[in-house]
């Protein structure tokens, strides 16, 4: 089925160059870890890795990762199916609500749950909070596939004698697989790097321990070695992803619009289904939003200073937009090469680009400090360097979306444009880009959401005096001024709503399969 040529074309060298630059950026923190490890020596590494605490952290991390990725895959697929393929009343509204948790930072959700249910901590608490925060990462891509899925494929399967259930398993499930796996991969990468939410829930993972170690004066080497462990975990995750995605062709060749499938009547299951989605929305959105309102009302420190809040809001939005544009542009050649020129180099470049997302912000930031202050001191603590850090951290968010969109875009369209004599740049601007616009929008929206809640890299690398909503919230929350912190968290949620909405529009436009 794979109909992809290996002919080299004009324009490829430029794409390879940009993609290589992106991969090199992602390798920068890994290089920092490697050099630190070499300086530490084999003996030092063994001493720091081979101890019970590291085993404990590895088990915690792996167990939570598998459990959360599975829970998100199941929950995200279920919500996508129920909103896209059944006659659930108000389905579009529910669909939008299921994207909305992405607008709430995980540490706010975590704090909210801890204050509502004080006993929620440890593994169960971590599983609940991370699943509530991350299941939209699966819901969105799966809903997009379900919406765009051509009914003819299922009908053909039925005509060839399969039952409705078997047709779903043989046709629909394989079509959803890249979306489910891609979403679960993002969930896994998020989990590997998550600190704030898990720290509050008293569930130590490798990343939580890394931050703890950086809080200790002389523990630099220990933290670096643990970061190395994290890189290995990320590589394992990526290998699993490759094994699960498969490489079959998913683009549809043919003219005209795909036929949408009629919605399945829920019948007697309607009430339980409504109850289920209602409960989920309360858990994922209601709890954190109610907590924000409570902080706003309680607490003596609730004096809203409009000036600083406005400045922080503008800064957060500006940084988010800039990072979203740069990261998406930087990632496009990586995704394009991986899909259109499958081979060892493109695959290597693509896999490399994923590494940054699994590393804690502090490791990426320290690597950039050390490199920038020596090689490009003029860029140190400037916006471009901060945007670079964001790009390293969040490239995978863009990559997954661009890859999924490209896979479903028939290469023939580009080939035909070439054949008709369009130069490569014109093909990119007139054919590829417009067809990818919504996928790229989703990529940019996810990056925007991540940047608006990023804390550590921002603290270390932003130009001195910069305040974002996230750093202001953190500064006030650590000073126990929850009343004063709440407006910043609330605004963080507000500015994320358009991005979350953009993600659902991506779904509703439908990417034809």
């Amino acid at each position: 089925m794979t109909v992809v040529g290996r002919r080299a074309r004009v324009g490829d060298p430029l794409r390879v160059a940009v993609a290589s630059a992106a991969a090199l950026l992602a390798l920068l923190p890994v290089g920092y870890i490697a050099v630190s490890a070499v300086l530490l020596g084999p003996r030092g590494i063994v001493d720091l890795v081979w101890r019970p605490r590291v085993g404990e952290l590895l088990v915690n991390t792996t167990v939570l990762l598998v459990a959360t990725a599975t829970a998100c895959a199941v929950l995200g697929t279920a919500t996508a199916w129920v909103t896209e393929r059944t006659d659930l009343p108000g389905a579009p509204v529910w669909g939008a609500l299921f994207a909305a948790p992405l607008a709430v930072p995980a540490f706010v959700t975590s704090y909210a749950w801890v204050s509502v249910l004080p006993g929620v901590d440890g593994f169960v608490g971590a599983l609940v909070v991370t699943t509530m925060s991350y299941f939209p990462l699966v819901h969105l891509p799966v809903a997009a596939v379900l919406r765009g899925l051509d009914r003819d494929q299922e009908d053909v399967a039925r005509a060839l004698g399969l039952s409705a259930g078997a047709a779903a398993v043989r046709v629909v499930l394989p079509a959803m697989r890249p979306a489910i796996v891609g979403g679960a991969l993002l969930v896994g990468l998020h989990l590997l790097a998550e600190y704030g939410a898990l720290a509050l829930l008293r569930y130590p993972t490798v990343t939580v321990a890394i931050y703890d170690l950086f809080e200790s004066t002389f523990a630099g080497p220990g933290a670096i070695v643990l970061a190395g462990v994290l890189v290995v975990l990320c590589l394992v995750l990526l290998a699993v992803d490759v094994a699960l995605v498969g490489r079959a062709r998913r683009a549809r060749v043919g003219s005209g619009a795909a036929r949408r499938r009629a919605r399945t009547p829920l019948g007697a299951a309607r009430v339980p289904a409504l109850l289920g989605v209602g409960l989920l929305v309360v858990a994922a959105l209601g709890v954190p939003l109610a907590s924000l309102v409570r902080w706003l009302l309680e607490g003596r420190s609730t004096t809203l200073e409009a000036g600083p809040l406005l400045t922080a809001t503008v800064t957060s939005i500006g940084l988010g937009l800039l990072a979203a544009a740069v990261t998406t542009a930087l990632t496009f050649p990586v995704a394009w090469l991986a899909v259109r020129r499958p081979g060892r180099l493109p695959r290597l470049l693509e896999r490399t680009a994923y590494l940054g997302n699994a590393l804690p912000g502090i490791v990426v930031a320290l690597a950039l400090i050390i490199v920038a202050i020596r090689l490009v001191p003029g860029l140190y603590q400037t916006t471009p360097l901060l945007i670079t850090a964001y790009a390293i951290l969040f490239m995978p968010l863009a990559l997954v979306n661009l890859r999924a969109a490209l896979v479903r875009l028939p290469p023939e369209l580009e080939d035909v444009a070439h054949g008709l004599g369009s130069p490569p740049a014109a093909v990119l601007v007139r054919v590829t880009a417009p067809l990818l616009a919504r996928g790229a929008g989703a990529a940019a929206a996810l990056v925007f959401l991540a940047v608006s809640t990023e804390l550590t890299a921002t603290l270390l690398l932003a130009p001195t005096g910069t305040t974002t909503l996230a750093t202001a919230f953190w500064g006030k929350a650590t000073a126990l001024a929850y009343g004063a912190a709440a407006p910043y968290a609330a605004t963080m949620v507000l500015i994320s709503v358009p991005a979350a909405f953009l993600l659902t529009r991506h779904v509703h436009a439908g990417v034809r399969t």
Partner: protein
Amino acid sequence: MVVQGRRIVRVVLAAVAGVALLAAAACGGAPAPEDRTITLYNAQHEDLGRLWVDEFTRQTGIPVQIRKGGDFELGNQLVAEGAASPADVFITENSPAMSLVSGAGLFAPVDPATRAQVPAQYSSNRGDWVGIAARTTVVVYNPSLVRADQLPASILEFAQPAWQGRIAFPPGGADFQAIVSAVNALNGDAATQQWLAGLKANGRIYQSNTATMQAVNRGEVPAGIIYHYYWYQDRAESGANSANTQLQFYTDGDAGGFLSVSGGGVLASSKRPAEAQQLLAFLAGAAGQQVLARSENLEYTVGAGVPANPALKPFAELRPPPVDLNALNGPKIVQMMQQAGLL
């Protein structure tokens, strides 16, 4: 769809170009040559740092840029930056991060007049940083779960089986490590290692002083080890995290009464050393200490004989154990905590 897509592309391209231009304009503004602005790396609480700097600028006309971070974020950042650091002054919540930067040889000697403002035991013995505020270790307890007279006479006893599941502490932060260092300085290696092993077996681990206090307040656990001002601040805010709790002070030389010092120092690489020394002199001197005493921060004053905020237990009644701040938190402490499985 294609037409609409093309419009989206055009809008996106225009947005990228616009934002790039803005960024270029923002980066282009180089400081004027007569600019006296100095940069403060502030690991103290944000509000206190802001109060200090505003008053300093009002008195001297010297503008101060603030970079906010945690003790070891900024400490590690300064070490990574080395001599190229843009920072002029560094202030922290606890002294170990000062020792980190001091150990890397990055501080300039503090002006003697400034050093004279602060009692010697609250400053570096190398003369490269001084104390600017202090916090005392306390045990926060929930009287409905444990009576004051049931609390142990020493925090070392929390490692005993009687406290299984009944003591909370935040081992991850800079704060608790300073306390472990104090236990080590006062009681030796063997006792410290035993204490840590006991806490690992008995204790409930929380992420921060606040989380520990909240857990005690909610009745999840009867007692916890924290610093005093988190409790006083919460009482001043709304009491939501402390209303059901009381504080136990250790005033007889036990490590449970350890006084941790916030430090301030001038970077050797500062390009405006005169202004930087002026800021440090202000922080440790009468003017800066009065700002602290009047603030809602509720840490203790240490310099120029300025009394602490009257809401606090008087400083003279604390009688902390004698601990050499310069000897705190060596690599050994981290190793011991790693061995105990706490890090």
